[in-house]
């Protein structure tokens, strides 16, 4: 059994979750402070990828990153790199798909934060960045971590947008999800089943981690 698809899935998920962690937390923090109307609009836009079919997200991404489209053509011309059909192309797709999960949970965690703690920090002369990293983030840690793990789990399972933007090249862009589809399509049921089991075990482990995190939060 060639383990490349698993390795590829894990690295795509890890990189995407890493990026989305920072972007999602920052978005949650700043958007919470915006006027109600702007907040409402941004909320809808940023949550859309959660409810759209991944193929729609993939299509929209190709409209931007495709070899003959605005960004894709520009990058190809200046850096001689194609943005699609690489293993890391999937990072674009997966990041967009999992962003709402991170953003929403982080916002929920921030909204539950007692602002008088930040006020206390300010009257004590603490800088805003100290307050953010040493007071706000630790107080919201469990909620944010749970969001990150959930986003990572979703990233592992992404199929639709990934297959459109990174395609399926054995040993190059294959992920567990696309591998299963290919094996099933070519009639290799036994191997497909093995990958299915691997996938279920990993996802269950990740969800277990989320539950443990949330339970810990409930206790404190």
């Amino acid at each position, binding site marked *: 059994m060639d383990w490349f698809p698993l390795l590829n899935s894990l690295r795509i998920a890890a990189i995407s979750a890493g990026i989305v962690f920072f972007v999602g937390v920052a978005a949650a923090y700043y958007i919470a402070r915006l006027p109600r109307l702007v907040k409402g609009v941004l909320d809808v836009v940023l949550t859309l990828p959660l409810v759209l079919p991944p193929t729609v997200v993939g299509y929209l991404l190709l409209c931007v990153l495709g070899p003959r489209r605005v960004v894709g053509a520009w990058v190809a011309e200046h850096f001689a790199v194609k943005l699609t059909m690489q293993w890391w192309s999937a990072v674009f797709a997966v990041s967009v798909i999992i962003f709402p999960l991170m953003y929403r949970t982080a916002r929920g965690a921030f909204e539950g934060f*007692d602002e*008088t*703690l930040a*006020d*206390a*920090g*300010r*009257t*004590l*002369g*603490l*800088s805003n960045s*100290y307050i953010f990293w*040493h*007071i706000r983030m*630790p*107080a919201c*840690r469990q909620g944010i971590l749970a969001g990150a793990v959930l986003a990572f789990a979703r990233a592992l399972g992404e199929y639709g947008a990934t297959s459109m933007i990174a395609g399926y090249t054995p040993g190059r862009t294959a992920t567990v999800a696309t591998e299963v589809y290919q094996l099933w399509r070519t009639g290799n049921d036994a191997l497909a089943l093995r990958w299915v089991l691997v996938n279920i075990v990993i996802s269950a482990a990740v969800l277990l981690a989320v539950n443990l995190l949330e339970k810990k939060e409930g206790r*404190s």
Partner: protein
Amino acid sequence: MSLSVHIYKELRDFTLNVQFDSDGGVMALLGASGCGKSMTLKCIAGLETPDRGTIVLNDSVLFDSTKRINKSPQARHVGYLFQHYALFPTMTVKGNLYAAAQRLPQEKRKRAVDEKLRTFRLETAQNLYPRQLSGGQQQRVALARALLSEPECLLLDEPFSALDNYLKWQTELELRELLKNYRGDVVYVSHDRDEVYRLCRDVCVLADGRSEPKRSVRDLMEAPWTVSAALISGCKNFSRVQRIDENHVKCLSWGVTLETAQEVNNVCTYAGVRAHSFHIARGGEPNRFDAKVVQVIDDTFSTILMLLPDGGTSAIRMELPKKEWAALRNPSVVLVGVAPEQVMTLSGEL
């Protein structure tokens, strides 16, 4: 040492209009809940911005709307004791203190923190988290933390409201000592007149966002000027009045005319009499009238009588020592008196 506050701020339910100058010592902001006390503290600390006005602390202008000065909370050096203490929950006691010591030079931090742990008797609790502490300990941590940042004034927001009765007294004794030794201005926010009477020198009554001129606490309790000040000082009986002459008012709700020691001025709208200022009268004294006993309520240490004066429309509340009431043997009518010095003439509306 001085703190001068003159601010206006439009709020949803009322307009905050607070004016006072404090020159060292402990000054109380006394008012019912929701009257703008905490909002005033937040404006002083820079956590809220007034619409107009000035805030000056020891020659340093913290806020001036005409000069467009509005210092950040970090730059104001104001110590704030929050109502529920606002200890950082993810840090230990020691961690909370070290956070506040950030402003000190690195080499001084440890000494300063150790010193506060000792003076506030927190050495044994230093590695505990805030949720593991008693209410009194939490307050000590919050005070130690506020003082570590070497503030030029202290704002105390209902410091005892989060404590149960027994702890309250113990903590009050400790706070007393601390305030005695503290050199800057202290603004003490409370709705409890007894606390204020014991701990503060001056008081500024706040009603619906509007402050009354600063007075000594003793003066306020003896002779409040307004109905709201009398209410917050614990007065239970009010009657709308008509001025008769400079020493007599006709109390419309009670149907009696009372002699006052205080001069009755033109803005006098109400008379106020404390429940324990009424007494059972004998013949010959001024301000006596017959009243029907409507209700008798047995209170913890006294007997409360609700009495309807002859010709009156609303009942007065009178408090008597239990023994004195028992000696009267349940009369249906009593002769009530009140000394002219005990009749407060008040302005404003109820």
